[in-house]
């Protein structure tokens, strides 16, 4: 019999990034007892890496902005597969959530009249991103952390959740281990909020940290929740490409927002060559107009470098494939050129993009105030995730289980706009915390079943019984290669079918991996347990991507390169079947409410 310690709380939040901390703060404010369980130390979650800013229609810089324009931009960016209700709530509530951060001590960059400054970003019609240089994510997480620790929540740092526990249909807690001692824990809770982030570690080239192994998606899936839109993975157009060891590390879209331009090896600004029809009327026709836009001329239209991420990523890939790439297989991103336009360009760049300056200087010996950067696409974000009710964030099929932030689906549809992620975290983190607290107040604690706990514990300890020559890292690397090569930025039926077969073989090998040594801070063991989560999300992405025989947003099929109106009518939804098999179905998109349809029409 495995030993475990049981902890009792009203609301259990899994994950301590922006969404998790915001949920925990809100639930604490509602007067319930809250625990936060996180894989890393507090304040280290992936949110810390977000750079550009958080989108909120505060209209501080351009008074033509409003929640309606933000809503329309989000829907257009998501190719209308978004949950329109979530897009509406997000656009309406984001400004208040940002102002609230200021009241909790966040220090945003300022406008000349002392208000919160907002910057341009891809797909946003007006300057909309509240930001702090290029370290906005750090500001967000530190503000929530420093506010949250005085709100009475209990934080379990460096604890990993392995499975959710259920009593009938309802979630009643979670099972996991602490990294330091490797001991087992059961958190008994009346409501559980998943805020675990994304899946980037299923790919070889990614901007995501080690934590992004699809834990929340997998926990929810095994507990009977639905996953939606998993085919929509965002490949950020600008990751570092050299040196090899830093391949994938993010280069913020803020570089382009500040006037950075993309060029191929011939020096051509290739983004002017391919402007999608639905963005033509809002895109600059020449470099001069683009520059005027980024320097605040309200009569100018945005440069094509600020088109949506899916489109920019594919254009970069096209240039590289056509032999017009940079020496290390990317293209050139140039911010240094603005010295032709402004007097103190190097100081300006260092002030607006300090982390980028530092990152390239330290890791690539490149001075971005002098030379162009080399950049290429990197796995960045998953639009899909756990299917939730748009108002409460409760999962559609498991009472008491909530999800917020990247782990949840709906807000972003087929493609997320830059800056809409940080605002997503605080808008829906708050809502999840609020409704989880409400659920906890209205329901008693459920029953934890010891036999279920013992079964999970046996599964978790099994790698110690097996041959350590079957190395978990090797399986993880092979899975990342398989997904990178076959279910990446450009997809075909044949390659994805191959990936499904490969996943089947890797599943058998994952079930055979062994670890040596003991349970105390043993990363080999942790990696072995994470494999199951990576398998679930990889299969979910691949199955959904095979089902969608068209190209839309983050999902691009070489064998079906165009949008197909028939595929605009549904979202893909996955659920674990009675025999443990992954079942896929199409769920009709709910037609836009009339007033929202009018807003979309007015902003076309």
């Amino acid at each position, binding site marked *: 019999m495995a030993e475990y310690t049981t902890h009792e709380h009203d609301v259990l939040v899994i994950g301590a990034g922006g969404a998790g901390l915001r949920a925990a703060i809100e639930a604490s404010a509602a007067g319930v007892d809250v625990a936060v369980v996180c894989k890393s130390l507090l304040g280290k979650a992936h949110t810390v890496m977000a750079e550009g800013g958080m989108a909120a229609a505060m209209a501080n810089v351009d008074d033509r902005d409003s929640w309606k324009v933000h809503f329309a931009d989000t829907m257009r960016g998501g190719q209308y597969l978004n949950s329109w209700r979530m897009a509406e709530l997000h656009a309406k509530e984001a400004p208040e959530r940002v102002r609230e951060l200021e009241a909790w*001590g966040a220090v945003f*960059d300022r406008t000349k*009249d*002392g208000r919160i400054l907002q910057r341009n970003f891809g797909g946003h019609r007006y300057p909309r991103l509240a930001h702090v240089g290029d370290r906005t994510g750090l500001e967000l997480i530190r503000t929530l952390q420093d506010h949250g620790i005085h709100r009475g929540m209990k934080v379990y740092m460096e604890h990993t959740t392995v499975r959710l526990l259920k009593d009938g249909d309802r979630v009643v807690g979670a099972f996991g281990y602490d990294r330091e001692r490797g001991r087992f824990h059961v958190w008994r809770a009346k409501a559980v909020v998943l805020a675990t982030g994304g899946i980037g570690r299923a790919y070889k080239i990614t901007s995501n940290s080690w934590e992004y192994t699809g834990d929340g998606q997998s926990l929810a899936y095994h507990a009977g929740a639905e996953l939606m839109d998993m085919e929509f993975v965002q490949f950020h157009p600008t990751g570092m490409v050299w040196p090899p*060891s830093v391949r994938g590390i993010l280069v913020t879209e803020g570089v382009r927002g500040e006037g950075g331009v993309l060029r191929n090896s011939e020096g051509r600004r290739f983004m002017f060559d391919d402007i999608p029809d639905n963005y033509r009327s809002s895109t600059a026709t020449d470099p001069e107009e683009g520059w005027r836009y980024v320097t605040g001329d309200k009569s100018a239209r945005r440069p094509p470098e600020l088109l949506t991420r899916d489109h920019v990523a594919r254009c970069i890939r096209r240039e590289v494939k056509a032999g017009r790439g940079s020496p290390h297989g990317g293209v050139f991103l140039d911010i240094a050129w603005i010295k032709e336009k402004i007097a103190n360009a190097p100081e300006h760049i260092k002030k607006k993009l300090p982390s980028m300056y530092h990152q390239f200087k330290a890791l690539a010996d490149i001075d971005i105030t002098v030379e162009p950067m080399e950049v290429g696409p990197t796995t960045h974000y998953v639009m899909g995730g756990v299917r939730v009710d748009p108002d409460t964030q409760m999962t559609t099929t498991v009472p008491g289980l909530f999800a917020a932030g990247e782990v949840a689906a709906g807000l972003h549809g087929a493609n997320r706009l830059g800056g809409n992620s940080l605002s997503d975290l605080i808008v829906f983190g708050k809502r999840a915390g609020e409704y989880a607290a409400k659920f906890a107040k209205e329901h008693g604690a459920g029953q934890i079943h010891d036999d279920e706990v013992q079964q999970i514990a046996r599964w978790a300890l099994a790698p110690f019984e097996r041959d350590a020559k079957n190395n978990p890292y090797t399986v993880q690397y092979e899975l990342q290669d398989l997904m990178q090569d076959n279910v990446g930025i450009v997809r075909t039926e044949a390659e994805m079918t191959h990936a499904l077969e490969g996943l089947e073989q890797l599943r058998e090998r994952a079930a055979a991996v062994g670890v040596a040594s003991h349970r*105390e801070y043993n990363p080999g063991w942790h990696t072995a347990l994470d494999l199951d989560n990576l398998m679930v999300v990889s299969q979910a992405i691949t199955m959904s991507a095979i089902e969608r025989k068209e190209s839309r947003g983050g999902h691009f099929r070489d064998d079906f390169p165009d949008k197909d109106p028939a595929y605009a009518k549904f979202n893909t939804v996955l659920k674990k079947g009675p025999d443990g098999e992954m079942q896929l179905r199409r769920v009709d998109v709910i037609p836009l409410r009339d007033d929202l349809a009018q807003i979309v029409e007015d902003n076309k």
Partner: protein
Amino acid sequence: MSKKVSLRIWRGDKDSGEFKSYETEADDGMVVLDVVHQVQATQAPDLAVRWNCKAGKCGSCSAEINGMPRLMCMTRLSDLPEGEPITVEPMMAFPIIKDLVTDVSWNFRVKQTIKPFKPRPPDAPDGTWRMDQRDVDRVQEFRKCIECFLCQNVCHVLRDHAKHETFIGPRFFVHTAALEMHPLDTEDRVPALKDDYNLGYCNITKCCTKVCPESITITDNAIIPLKERVVDRFYDPVRRLFRVLSGS
């Protein structure tokens, strides 16, 4: 170009440990964390090391590399002497958990004791505030901190004299400075700086400033101005006389 690299990595737990030698291949541009990961993936799967972002933004992978406190993810092999083994060991000012991982929980407990942000009433009827960029510049410098705790690790008050119970260390002087110099904040932390956090123990050797991966000028911009506030409040002769006369 791939080349051989030798590493001496400290392996052990709170009771005992030793340096173990490893050899691995390194490519152009690699950082220390890359080769440590390579050793972990191929030779020592249970090698404990903290890391998250591998981009110098989260402050998880602090260690002592060839005796220098640094982030493993931002230390390039090409910056270290070629042909010599690279020594990697855990931060010394904190208790060891295992291998390169230390128990930094003390830092989180310290932060809890510092009075949180308390803003003045909003400036505008819509509940918002007005601040000049030049007034927030210095606070923004402090808020760049990624909590890697390298400054705590090199502070001799902590490292050599283990005053963890009575001294909060450079990280939390920076944190306190960020609050005290926040244009909106109304809380008073100056008495605590003198009496509870013992700012006076710091004799401004600037070791913290030297190791800060975010290049925060900890000593000059945070600690010294805080010391001045303490001096102005408690040791200014005129104010002292006033206090004696008024009996306060």
